[in-house]
C-alpha cells in the first residue's frame, strides 16, 4: 500500500502552537491505538465519520487531530475514523490532514460532535504534493500553501541520506542555490552573493562574516530537522541582510521520552565527522544536546604553490536547547551554541629578505545564547520575548619555523546583541496581525579598526496576513530601522496568492531588502605596510583625516571640510527591490511542478573610491554608495513521486545578471580592455559582456531517491550542473568579456546508499563521482568516498 512506508506527520494545534511529531506510520498507529485503547476505558465522548476526496472516494490514512488535546487518529482502510476522549475542550475543532490535500480545520459544537458517528468530511486537493509547514515565511507557523511566497524545504531525510556533513555541501545540491568560494564558502541566491543572504538558526541570525561572506562550512548538519529557503527580499520581516532571501536552519527537537543517536563518518582525505544527538523530555521539560567533531588532514591540489589548498582543521560544535512549559500559557526555551575550529597551514614569507617557511595558525569561535519566552495570554494573543547574544572571534598568526618567532598576528572580536518583542494577534482562523519592536547593538574590537566600535539600531515592524476574498491570500509587512551610523530606512513587502483551481495556485510578491554598511565600510582604519595606501571607513572619517593631516600623512594644503563636502559621507544601506511571481501546479496526484520568475534591482552598492592622495603619493580610499546591479531569471522545479519509495526531483534556473553602470558604459562605447600581449587598448562591445563574475546563466539539478523496501536499502543519486561562469579578469577592465575569463560548465554526481539493520544504519557513498577538480573551487577537490555508521535509540 502506498502509505505504509511513507513518513506521515501529525499536527497538533495546541493553544495556537503547533508541535510536530515525525515517525514511521507504524509507530504512530501503535501510539494512536494505545491512546485509543487507554481512552476507551474511561471515555466519555466518542465520535467518528468518513473522509472522502473531491470525487467522493474514501480516503485512507488521513490524520485527524482534536485541536488543543493529544487525541489523534487516522482513517482506516475503509476511510472511516473514530475518536474517544475524556474531556472536550471549550472550542471544539478537528484538523484533517493528508498528503497532497489541503489541511482542513473544522469547528463543531458539542451537540454536533458527541456520539455522532456520521461526520462527513470532504478534502480538496492542494497545489502541493506534501502538506508542509513553514515558520520562516511569516514568522508564524503556517502551512506552505497559505503563504503567498515560494518556500523551499530541505528535509532531514534528504540531509541525512546525502552523506553530507557541512551546510555548504547540503545547499550546493539545491537547484537555484550556488556555492561560491570567496573569503570562505558562501551562498549565492538569485545571483546575489553571500553578504546579501540572511542565514538563521532557529530564527536567529548567524554572526561572523569575512569580507561579507558567511562561511557555511562552520555549520554541521547532524542536528538539522529541516532547512527552509525563502527567495526574494524579506527585510520587511527580518531587516538587515535579508536582501536576496533568507535561509532558516531548524534544529531537531524530539518529543521522545529519551533518544540517543550516535554517528560516525569517514571520508577520503582523512575527513572524519562524529555526531552525538541526545534528548530527553519530561512532562513539561525537554532537553536536547548536539555535539559534533570534524577534522581533516587538509589537501594540496597545487604542488607549485607553497602550503595546502585546503588547510588541516579540527572543529567542535556544541548545541544545547531546553524547552520548559512553565504553565499552559507560558513557555521558556533557552538555547546556546559554541563552535571552535583550529586551522593549520604553512606559508612562505619574507624573513630578512629571504623567503622562509612559516606556520600559519588560525582559530575561530562563535557562540550564541538565546532565551525566548512565549506567552499565550489568551486564545487570540501570543507574545514572544526574545533575547539573543552572539559572538564571533578569530585569531590568526604566522610564525617562522626556523626560530619560532611571530611574523604577524591579528584578532577580530565581534559581538551582536538583540532584544525583541513580537506580538501575534489572531482575528480569525486565517487573519493574523503581528507587531514587534527591537534593538540591536553590535560591537567590534579588532586590529585594523581603531579601538572599540559600537553601533546601535532600533526597529519596529508590522505584518498582516489575511484572506480578503475566497481563494485569495495576502500578506503585507512594513519595517522601520534606525541606525546610529547610516540613514534610517523603511522596508515594505507585499505578497498575494490566488488559488485558481484546487490544484493550481499563482502568487506574486514585491519587497524591499537592505544590507547595512558593514564594519569595514564604517570603521576600517588600514594602511598597507608595503604599498603605503590607506583605506578609511566613513564613520569617523573627519577625525581620522584631521589626525593624518596633523601627522603629516596628508598635505596641510588640503581643506578637509571642503574635501568631505564633495561627496555624501553618510552611507546609505545597500538596498534592493525584488519581484517574485510564479505558480504551483499539481496536474496529477503524483506530480507537482512550479515556476518562479524573479528580478532584483540593487542600488547604492558600496565600494571604495580615491578620496585624495597622501604625502607619500599613495591613494587614500574611503567608501561611498556607487553602483547598481540587476539580477533576473526563472527557476523551474518538478517533483514526481510514483511510489512511496521512489522520488524524482528536477530543478533548473536561468539567471541573467548585469552591473547597470557597466552596461550603460558599454552602450556608450566607454568600456575598454587591454590586449594582454601588446598592451594596446580595445573597445568592448555590449554583446561581449558576460554579466557579473561567478554567476552561471544555467544551473540544474536532478535527484533520484529509491528505497528497496524488502532490504531497507536506500539509494540517493544527485546530479548538479553549474553552467559556464566568469571567474577572473585578464584584461584589466574588471568585467568579464573574453573567453579566457570564463570557466566551462560542469556536472557533479553524488551517490549515497544506506541500509538499516534495526537501530543500526550503515552508509556508503561517493561525492563527486566523476572526479572533477578545479583550482578556482577548492571544494571541488576530486572524488571523495565515504563510509558511515550510526546507531539510534529512543523511547
Amino acid at each position: 500500500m502506498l502509505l505504509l512506508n511513507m513518513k506521515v506527520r501529525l499536527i497538533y494545534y495546541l493553544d495556537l502552537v503547533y508541535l510536530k511529531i515525525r515517525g514511521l506510520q507504524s509507530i504512530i498507529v501503535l501510539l494512536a491505538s494505545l491512546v485509543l485503547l487507554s481512552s476507551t476505558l474511561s471515555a466519555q465522548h466518542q465520535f467518528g465519520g468518513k473522509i472522502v476526496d473531491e470525487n467522493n472516494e474514501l480516503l485512507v490514512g488521513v490524520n485527524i487531530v482534536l485541536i488543543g488535546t493529544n487525541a489523534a487518529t487516522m482513517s482506516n482502510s475503509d476511510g472511516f475514523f473514530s475518536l474517544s476522549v475524556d474531556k472536550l475542550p471549550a472550542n471544539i475543532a478537528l484538523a484533517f490532514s493528508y498528503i497532497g490535500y489541503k489541511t482542513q480545520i473544522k469547528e463543531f459544537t458539542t451537540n454536533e460532535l458527541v456520539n455522532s458517528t456520521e461526520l462527513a468530511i470532504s478534502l480538496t486537493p492542494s497545489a502541493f504534493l506534501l502538506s508542509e509547514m513553514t515558520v520562516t515565511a511569516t514568522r508564524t507557523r503556517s502551512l506552505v500553501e497559505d503563504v503567498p511566497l515560494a518556500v523551499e524545504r530541505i528535509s532531514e531525510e534528504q540531509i541525512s541520506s546525502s552523506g553530507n556533513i557541512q551546510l555548504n555541501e547540503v545547499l550546493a545540491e539545491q537547484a537555484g542555490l550556488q556555492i561560491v568560494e570567496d573569503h570562505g564558502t558562501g551562498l549565492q541566491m538569485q545571483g546575489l552573493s553571500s553578504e546579501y543572504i540572511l542565514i538563521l538558526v532557529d530564527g536567529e541570525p548567524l554572526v561572523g562574516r569575512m569580507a561579507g561572506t558567511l562561511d557555511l562550512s562552520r555549520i554541521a548538519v547532524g542536528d538539522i530537522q529541516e532547512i527552509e529557503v525563502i527567495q526574494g527580499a524579506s527585510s520587511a520581516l527580518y531587516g538587515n541582510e535579508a536582501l536576496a532571501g533568507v535561509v532558516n536552519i531548524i534544529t531537531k527537537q524530539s518529543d521522545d521520552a529519551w533518544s540517543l543517536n550516535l554517528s560516525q563518518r569517514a571520508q577520503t582525505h582523512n575527513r572524519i565527522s562524529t555526531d552525538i544527538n541526545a534528548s530527553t523530555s519530561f512532562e513539561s521539560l525537554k532537553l536536547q544536546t548536539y555535539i559534533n567533531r570534524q577534522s581533516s588532514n587538509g589537501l594540496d591540489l597545487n604542488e607549485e604553490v607553497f602550503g595546502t589548498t585546503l588547510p588541516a582543521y579540527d572543529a567542535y560544535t556544541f548545541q544545547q536547547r531546553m524547552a520548559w512549559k512553565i504553565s499552559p500559557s507560558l513557555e521558556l526555551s533557552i538555547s546556546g551554541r559554541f563552535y571552535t575550529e583550529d586551522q593549520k597551514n604553512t606559508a612562505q614569507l619574507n624573513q630578512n629578505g629571504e623567503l622562509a617557511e612559516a606556520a600559519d595558525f588560525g582559530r575561530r569561535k562563535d557562540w550564541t545564547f538565546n532565551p525566548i519566552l512565549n506567552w499565550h495570554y489568551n486564545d487570540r494573543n501570543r507574545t514572544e520575548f526574545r533575547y539573543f547574544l552572539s559572538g564571533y572571534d578569530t585569531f590568526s598568526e604566522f610564525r617562522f619555523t626556523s626560530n619560532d618567532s611571530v611574523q604577524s598576528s591579528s584578532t577580530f572580536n565581534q559581538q551582536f546583541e538583540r532584544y525583541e518583542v513580537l506580538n501575534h494577534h489572531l482575528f480569525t482562523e486565517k487573519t493574523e496581525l503581528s507587531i514587534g519592536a527591537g534593538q540591536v547593538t553590535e560591537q567590534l574590537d579588532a586590529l585594523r579598526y581603531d579601538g572599540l566600535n559600537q553601533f546601535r539600531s532600533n526597529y519596529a515592524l508590522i505584518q498582516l496576513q489575511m484572506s480578503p476574498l475566497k481563494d485569495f491570500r495576502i500578506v503585507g509587512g512594513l519595517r522601520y530601522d534606525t541606525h546610529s551610523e547610516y540613514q534610517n530606512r523603511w522596508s515594505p513587502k507585499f505578497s498575494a496568492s490566488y488559488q485558481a483551481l484546487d490544484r493550481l495556485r499563482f502568487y506574486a510578491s514585491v519587497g524591499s531588502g537592505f544590507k547595512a554598511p558593514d564594519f569595514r565600510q564604517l570603521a576600517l582604519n588600514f594602511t598597507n605596510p608595503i604599498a603605503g595606501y590607506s583605506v578609511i571607513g566613513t564613520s569617523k572619517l573627519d577625525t581620522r583625516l584631521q589626525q593624518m593631516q596633523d601627522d603629516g600623512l596628508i598635505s596641510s594644503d588640503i581643506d578637509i571640510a571642503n574635501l568631505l563636502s564633495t561627496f555624501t559621507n553618510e552611507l546609505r544601506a545597500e538596498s534592493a527591490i525584488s519581484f517574485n511571481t510564479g505558480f504551483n501546479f499539481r496536474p496529477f496526484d503524483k506530480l507537482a511542478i512550479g515556476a518562479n520568475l524573479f528580478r532584483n534591482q540593487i542600488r547604492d552598492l558600496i565600494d571604495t573610491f580615491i578620496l585624495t592622495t597622501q604625502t607619500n603619493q599613495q591613494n587614500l580610499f574611503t567608501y561611498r554608495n556607487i553602483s547598481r546591479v540587476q539580477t533576473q531569471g526563472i527557476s523551474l522545479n518538478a517533483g514526481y513521486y510514483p511510489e512511496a519509495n521512489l522520488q524524482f526531483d528536477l530543478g533548473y534556473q536561468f539567471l541573467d545578471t548585469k552591473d547597470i553602470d557597466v552596461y550603460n558604459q558599454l552602450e556608450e562605447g566607454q568600456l575598454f580592455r587591454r590586449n594582454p600581449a601588446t598592451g594596446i587598448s580595445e573597445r568592448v562591445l555590449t554583446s561581449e559582456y558576460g554579466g557579473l563574475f561567478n554567476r552561471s546563466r544555467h544551473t540544474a539539478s536532478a535527484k533520484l531517491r529509491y528505497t528497496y523496501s524488502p532490504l531497507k536499502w536506500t539509494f540517493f543519486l544527485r546530479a548538479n550542473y553549474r553552467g559556464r561562469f566568469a571567474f577572473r579578469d585578464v584584461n584589466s577592465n574588471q568585467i568579464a568579456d573574453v573567453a579566457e575569463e570564463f570557466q566551462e560548465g560542469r556536472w557533479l554526481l553524488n551517490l549515497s546508499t544506506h541500509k538499516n539493520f534495526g537501530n543500526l544504519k550503515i552508509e556508503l557513498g561517493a561525492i563527486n563521482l566523476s572526479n572533477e577538480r578545479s583550482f578556482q573551487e577548492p571544494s571541488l577537490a576530486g572524488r571523495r568516498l565515504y563510509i558511515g555508521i550510526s546507531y539510534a535509540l529512543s523511547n
Partner: protein
Amino acid sequence: MNKPSLIFILSIVSVLVISCTDNGVNSTLPEPVNAKIMMNIPADTAAPRGAPHSFDYFSFETGQLIPRSDSNSSKWDIGFGKTTIILNSGTSGPGNTTGQLLSVLFNEIKEAPETGYLSDNKPNLVYNDWYNYTGDSSPPHAVIPKPGLVLVFKTAEGNYGKMEILSYYKDNPSYIDASFINFRTRPPSGFYTIRYAIQEKGSRIF
C-alpha cells in the same frame, strides 16, 4: 625599428587618400603624426619599496629622457616616480605642460580638444588613478594600466599630443605569460612603456 616604418608607409597612404578628397581645407591640414613607442622609461626604480621616491623625466618634444639635474627646468614634460605621474606645471614643476585624461581609444583621437587642459596641482594630479591593482586575482599583485585611458597634453611650446601607458613592467611583457603571472619570475616594475604622438606644428589634428 621596423614597425614605425610600416606605420609611416600607412600614414603616407592615408595622406594621399586625404589629399585626394577635395573638401577645400586639406591644403591647410598639417601632416598626420606618427605614434611613437618609448620603452622602459624608469620611474626611480632604485628607491626601496614604500620609501619616498624621486622622479625620472621625459620630454615629448625631444623624445628623450631628461636627467634629474634638470628637474627644476621646463625641459621635461612628464615625470614618473613609481606609480605617481606628474606633468611639468602647477605644484609639480616650473614648466607649463598641461593635460587632461580622456576615456577613449588612442587611435580615435583625431583632434585634440581645444580646452580643458589642467595644470598639475597636488593633491589632484592630472594623471591620477591610471591603473588597476590586481590584488589576489590573476596575474596577482600586478599594476595594469586602465584600458582606454589617454592623456591629451599641451606642451610649454604649445604643441598638442596624446599618450597612453602600455605597461608598468620592463620590456612591455605579455601579462598572461606564465613568467609574468608568477611574480618571482616577473620582469621588474617601474619601467613605463608608453605610446605617444605629438603634433609639432601647433595644430590640434593628429
